[in-house]
């Protein structure tokens, strides 16, 4: 099997490092790709489930741009809808009618919601949700889950990171996932002070097994929130429309006050949404919140096309089925080589870990070996499956995984 080289990626990165902080920053930074020298840094082309790097290597992409790609790269229907809207009007002095069409479509789609507000990134939606909770309750504090991710705003970042001050996180209370007692304790100890509780529908931290909510978790949390007047915020940025077309809260059987969407909503076109209940509509109306590109119409047209197509083909079921096949196949291959590959989270966005080495070094090596053979696997983050991944992709992936395990055995036996 051919082993890829990344000479041009490294060469371009050297140029980038001179003029761009970190060369590549944020979640696309190569730093958590272990080792980065086994990964491509720059993509030049993409189609369906694959992308092609600057060195000419082809990858079956199991990161899907860290979530936005859901129907496949360069999806014809989505791109056509966006192109047509670009041809009519995009970033103009007034919004386009498609904004209303998209809001109506979403409100019909997502149970328990009565309005939709559009922005660009998931972070825009989580900030607005936080502001809405505070405006609605007149309270300051927010409860969140340790290891949960809600964007890069200072309040959402882990204390100690650069650029933060103590005041940024002094009103944030972090509790463990799936721990109703801890939630109740935080509420009791801060009686009348909690504005909101924000969490992802299930826990998908990096570098750790992902966890579904325990039986009755969300229902109990919802009851406590209602009783205490706490705004319940579902951060469905990562899971949204991969688990359930009606939102992941529908999948887990609860109705939040606010839901944040992004990533899969536009199949790569920049758009996010905050949706909420009628009771909060007047409150959010009073918050001044906007952005230069938040009214751009082409991403709205793309989102509408994406959602319609996902619904038409029952995208979540396809991704569930594909993800399940992928995980089953990989687990069996690992077992055949004497390794235990543990999978967690939803099959459409699974987290994997070779348990034979708690340090994750073995797992990191395997993911790198797979990537060097054409299956783009990260070792730190949950993967993403799209509706564009085919049986042919899976078969190729299994061959790659098998060869990578052979390489791993050889390396560690030495």
């Amino acid at each position, binding site marked *: 099997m051919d082993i890829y080289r990344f000479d041009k990626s*490294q060469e371009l*990165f*050297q140029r980038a*490092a001179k003029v761009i*902080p*970190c*060369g*590549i*920053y944020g979640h696309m*930074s*190569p*730093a*958590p790709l*272990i*080792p*980065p*020298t086994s990964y491509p*840094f720059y993509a030049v082309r993409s189609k369906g489930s694959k992308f092609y790097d600057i060195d000419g290597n082809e990858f079956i992409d199991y990161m899907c741009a860290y979530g936005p790609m859901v129907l496949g790269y360069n999806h014809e229907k989505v791109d056509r809808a966006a192109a047509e809207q670009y041809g009519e009007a995009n970033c103009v002095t007034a919004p386009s009618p498609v904004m209303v069409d998209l809001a109506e479509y979403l409100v019909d789609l997502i149970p328990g919601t009565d309005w939709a507000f559009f922005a660009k990134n998931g972070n825009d939606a989580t900030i607005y949700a936080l502001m809405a909770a505070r405006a609605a309750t007149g309270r300051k504090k927010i409860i969140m889950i*340790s290891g949960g991710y809600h964007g890069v705003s200072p309040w959402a970042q*882990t*204390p*100690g*990171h*650069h650029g933060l001050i*103590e005041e940024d996180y002094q009103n944030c209370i972090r509790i463990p996932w799936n721990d109703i007692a801890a939630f109740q304790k935080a509420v009791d100890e801060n009686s009348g002070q909690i504005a909101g509780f924000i969490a992802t529908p299930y826990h998908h931290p*990096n*570098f750790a097994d992902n966890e579904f909510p325990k039986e009755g978790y969300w229902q109990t949390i919802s009851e406590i929130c209602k009783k205490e007047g706490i705004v319940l915020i579902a951060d469905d940025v990562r899971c949204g429309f991969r688990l359930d077309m009606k939102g992941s809260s529908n999948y887990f059987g609860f109705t939040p006050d606010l839901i944040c969407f992004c990533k899969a909503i536009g199949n790569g076109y920049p758009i996010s949404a905050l949706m909420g209940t009628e009771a909060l509509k007047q409150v959010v109306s009073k918050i001044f919140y906007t952005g230069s590109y938040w009214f751009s119409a082409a991403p709205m047209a793309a989102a509408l096309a994406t959602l319609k197509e996902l619904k038409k083909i029952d995208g979540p079921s396809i991704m569930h089925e594909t993800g399940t096949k992928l995980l089953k196949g990989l687990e069996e291959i690992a077992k055949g080589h004497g390794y235990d590959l543990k999978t967690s989270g939803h099959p459409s966005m699974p987290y994997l870990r070779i348990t034979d080495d*708690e*340090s*994750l*070094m073995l797992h*990191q090596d395997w993911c790198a070996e797979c990537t060097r053979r054409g299956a783009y696997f990260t070792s*730190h983050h949950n993967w993403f499956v799209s509706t564009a991944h085919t049986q042919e992709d899976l078969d190729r992936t299994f061959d790659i995984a098998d060869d990578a395990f052979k390489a791993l055995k050889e390396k560690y036996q030495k």
Partner: protein
Amino acid sequence: MSHELLTARLNAYAVLKNLEDLVVHDREMALFTKDWNIAIRFFVLNGPDAFVEFDSGKCRVGKGGGEKKSSVILFFHSPAHFNKMMDGKASPVPVKGFTKLRFLTKEFSVLTEKLEYYLKPNADLLADPKWVALNTRMTLTTAVWSIPELAELDPVANILSSHMGKGSISLGILPDGPKVNLTVNKDSIVPAKGEIKAPAAAMTMKDMTVANDFLNGRLDAFTAIATGDVSIRGQIPMVDTLSLMLDRIALYLS
């Protein structure tokens, strides 16, 4: 937490620690100290309590009284007093070992001046590979021995360390440079020199020059990792947390 107290603890437990390497890796200082047989205790009221022992060309620095009976005890009436002494702006109060005063003012000060020489870079020194090698070794030691003190007394590092997870982190410089490690337990973080088997996380720097730039903040970590100049493996959150804690050192040690 007082800023002076944490600075004093870093000076006592992390900076003075470098005397151990100075008497091994600087030939002049190795010869100069080879016959020393003395134990000096630095006692700071409401602050650190450290010993520096010399025996047959070897030096040991640590917390408390050490293994040898102290020949000299130097008293400092406050952490600020000790920090001023470390900056060469104050003198200690000897409470034991008056007969050794000449040793302290003449011979020991030669050693500490040499330590200062290796810890304070300038453009000329940075061009000298030998100086860079020892400065890098000392910077690594200072960094690692600072971590337990920061975790205890720096409010931000304290929060960070509580999320660090348990296990060992190894840090090393290739091809044959120094290796150190930190073991994170439930209630403590223990620094040590040398290699450790099966660390939870590892950070390896390509060579002394890269390590010197990296440890002194002249090389962006994300860029260095992407290019392979610095390699990290294992439980990356531990390395990430360690890196954030290391960035706190500059707030206390100039």
